[in-house]
């Protein structure tokens, strides 16, 4: 057997390569996929607008906005809300504004909106409405969220 001459240069190169490889930092573990922080879901509901009218559509928005009604009209107050809630209370207090205010109706509803919503309150009367000035006050979770004045005229 013929011994091959030892190539010292090649040996050094091989040794150097092994040292470099041996010192190489282990690859970092794959980064875990972390969900981007999602903004907290808005909580609570706010009243965006209150609109009066004598007719509403299927989406409960006012189709005939009015602030002066005829004595035979049904009066609608549509409350537009934004936000979400598991249980919010909307209340309408209707008042006849005469020589002294007289509350004529109060209605409330409990809603669980998951986004913008329209809630209507309506008022009708078997006999004609007395002419005069009226007001509807809207309360959200017991706190005043706005009022609207209107009038009944022949």
């Amino acid at each position, binding site marked *: 057997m013929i011994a091959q001459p030892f190539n010292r240069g090649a040996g050094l190169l091989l040794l150097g390569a092994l040292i470099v490889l041996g010192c190489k930092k282990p690859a970092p573990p794959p980064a875990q996929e972390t969900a981007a922080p999602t903004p907290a879901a808005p909580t609570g509901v706010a009243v965006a607008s209150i609109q009066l009218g004598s007719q509403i559509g299927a*989406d*409960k928005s006012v189709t005939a906005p009015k602030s002066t009604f005829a004595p035979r009209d049904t009066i609608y107050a549509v409350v537009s*809300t934004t936000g979400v*809630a*598991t*249980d*919010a*209370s*909307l*209340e*309408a207090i*209707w008042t*006849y504004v*005469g*020589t002294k205010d*007289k509350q*004529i*109706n*109060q*209605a*409330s*509803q*409990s*809603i*669980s*909106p*998951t986004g913008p*919503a*329209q*809630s*209507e*309150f*309506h*008022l*009708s*009367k*078997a*006999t004609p409405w*007395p*002419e*005069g000035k009226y007001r509807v006050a809207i309360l959200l979770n017991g706190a005043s969220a706005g009022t609207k004045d209107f009038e009944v005229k022949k």
Partner: protein
Amino acid sequence: MVPSDPDFSDVQGGGSSTAPSGQGAQSYTVAKGDTLSKIAKQFYGDAKQWKKIFEANTDSIKNPDLIYPGQVLKIPAA
């Protein structure tokens, strides 16, 4: 001429929403001619559910046959 104290006993009110109903009770103001059965029919579609309304309002209704215009009733969720 508007009477000084107009009669609103025949006023009927209510409400609805595009939002799902919450878990709380609604309220309803009794109008002239209302009965608990009529109100139950209006809210639940079933007049026989009048007892549910009666039981939620025992503090203000002593006799289920006697409710008054202007009385505000709690209407429990269906």
